[in-house]
């Protein structure tokens, strides 16, 4: 099928390898991938800050660019939640409400797309390392995405998954929250890192690059002996 891939702003700028990995995986599975040239952002920053009108300025372009997409795969849990769950709330009572509601069922976060829509869990990937998984809040609670990443990791050869105690605890990113309340954000990140380090894992894996940006930022500053990696980067390794 023709898969429209939505690449959020931070993946585009900071973690293009995640998007590249997703393209390669989807093409290997025999699908055509399209990337809309237009919007680079889902509009979440303005939405979360309470500027819904300004958020709609961006989100309308996203709606329009995805109108004729057969299926939309989003390269992060938080933007996935924005498109699937929050767009109907953002556009409630406006003339785009129907369009937003109609988009939602066509949207999937990447790992959910593979497992739930395509029914694929084994990509022939190999990653012989000990890892622990961080459940991004949006993916976990708005998209109910707890199982697909784990089903995918279970099929990766050589991968050893050790769950951390604070897997479901927020990493502290929260978009503009990380800049508005940096001390709280940092404390939350430290709790997350400490929990991950207890597992003796080499990698913290997530489906959310924004979370990984927060966690990696702390790891680098505090020189912690652990690395972060997006699930797609693992799945593309043979």
């Amino acid at each position, binding site marked *: 099928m023709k898969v429209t891939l939505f*690449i959020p*702003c931070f*993946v*585009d*700028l*900071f*973690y*293009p*390898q995640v*998007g*590249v990995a997703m393209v390669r995986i989807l093409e290997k599975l025999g699908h055509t991938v399209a*990337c809309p*040239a*237009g*919007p*680079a*952002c889902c*509009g979440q*920053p*303005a*939405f*979360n*800050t*309470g*500027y819904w009108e*300004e*958020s709609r*300025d*961006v989100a309308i*372009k996203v709606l329009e660019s995805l109108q004729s997409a057969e299926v939309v795969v989003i390269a992060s849990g938080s933007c996935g939640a924005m498109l699937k769950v929050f767009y109907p*709330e953002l556009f409630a009572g406006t003339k785009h409400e129907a369009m937003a509601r109609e988009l939602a069922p066509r949207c999937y976060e990447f790992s959910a797309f593979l497992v739930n829509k395509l029914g694929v869990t084994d990509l022939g990937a190999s990653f012989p390392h000990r890892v622990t998984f961080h459940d991004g*809040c949006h993916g976990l*609670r*708005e998209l109910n995405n707890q199982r697909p990443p784990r089903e995918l990791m279970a099929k990766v050869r050589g991968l050893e998954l050790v769950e951390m105690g604070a897997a*479901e605890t*927020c990493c*502290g*990113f*929260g*978009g503009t*929250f*990380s*800049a*508005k*309340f*940096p*001390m*709280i*954000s*940092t*404390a*939350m*990140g430290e*709790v997350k890192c400490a929990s991950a380090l207890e597992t003796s894992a080499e990698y913290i894996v997530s489906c959310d690059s924004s979370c990984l*940006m927060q966690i*990696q*930022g*702390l790891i*680098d*500053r505090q020189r912690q002996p652990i690395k972060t990696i997006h699930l797609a980067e693992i799945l593309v390794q043979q």
Partner: protein
Amino acid sequence: MSTPAARFNQDARRLSADLRHRQIIQTAMGNYEVVRDQRKAAFQDWQGARQMAAETKWEAVNHLDRHLEQLARNLEARGAKVHWAGTAQEARDLILGILRARNARVIVKSKAMTSEEIHLNEAMEQAGYEVVESDLGEFIVQLRQEPPYHIVFPAMHLTRDEIKDVFQRKLGDAPSNNPEELTMVARRVLREKYLQADVGITGANFAIAETGMISITENEGNARLTAALPRTMITLVGIEKVLPRLEDLALFLPMLAAMGTGQTLTCYNTLYGGPRQPGETDGPEEYHVVLLDNHRTALLADAEQRDSLHCIRCGACLNVCPIFRNVGGHTYGTTYCGPIGAVITPNLRGVSDWKHLSYASSLCGACTETCPVKINLHHHLLQNRRNASRQQPSWWQKIAFKAFAPVATKPALWSLVTQMGRLGQKLHGLVKGGRLDPAYAWTKTRDLPPIAQQTFREWWRTRS
């Protein structure tokens, strides 16, 4: 005089870096989580119970006038006096009036968050009454002259040594720092106060409309004594605490116990329907129930956020909130802390001064997930942010977001900004981590990733 927002930032900054304080909360919450999960697992259908409780509260709150009137009638039929207090001032005046009429001197109180909300203790003390908090945690923080730290565990931030210290200073009686011995000291002191007190003031967990009863949940027995020994009893209760029927408690009492403290049922769950009845030989001669509005009707009028009045004050949302767990209860600087506090406080105390609480959240949604009555807490935080920015827009943010729209939606502009960003990052190295750094909020404690040599869009363009 600094603003609540400035004080919040100051306290949050100090406490998020206080590893000892963070450890105390983490330990307490860790223990709580184990028993809470056991209690939830004992339910045959916990999610079904949440839905049932949510629907019962919807019925109670969305027909509140009818249920309150029935509650009042049934209480009055048994000789209780029901008072309606529109504001905090009215509630204080009503209660002080009762104290005067009953010639009170010593007042014993059991836990009532509403009394914190209306600053009742200060008013009574200023009027010359002796006021003693009987709940052990409240008793301790009263001695330390600080507000409660958590709506269920008022003294959770204190060590046994700190408690021994204040008992020594204020009571002159602290045999050791052993929790049991300290508790016995409080027991001895308070026993005397129960016997001396002229008036007992309680809060309420629920108010049963059908039978006209106030339901009080506690572990210590201090509310039972407050309601048994003094000649006059006063219950201060928020109007939203109503439940329609007596049997609704069969669901709510175990749910409150599970989420509040991880118990099957709290030690004493007691229903009070009036003063001493004919044939009874003890209990108060007079029973006054003060129904408190204090901006609750304003929240009621907001249909979008009306369900925040469903709250049963179990504290579960505080316990799962990563913000609460890192800054603690005092940082919020107001009666109701944690997620529910962040939702209702701007609406109860003013958007201008308190909207920052709704912003101090990463919107992780753990609160909504755990709430036993399914309040859509984190969505309400988003709605509060929207309402705040409509009422009092921050112009530079508005302009920034407006300017962001074409940048984010026109490929040429995005491309330009990407180039500028790369250049900016090279220069950023000069100011990084210092006061001139525009990204200081981030870079003070974290590294920033570099913009990629080739962004995804740049790579995508090379393919076609």
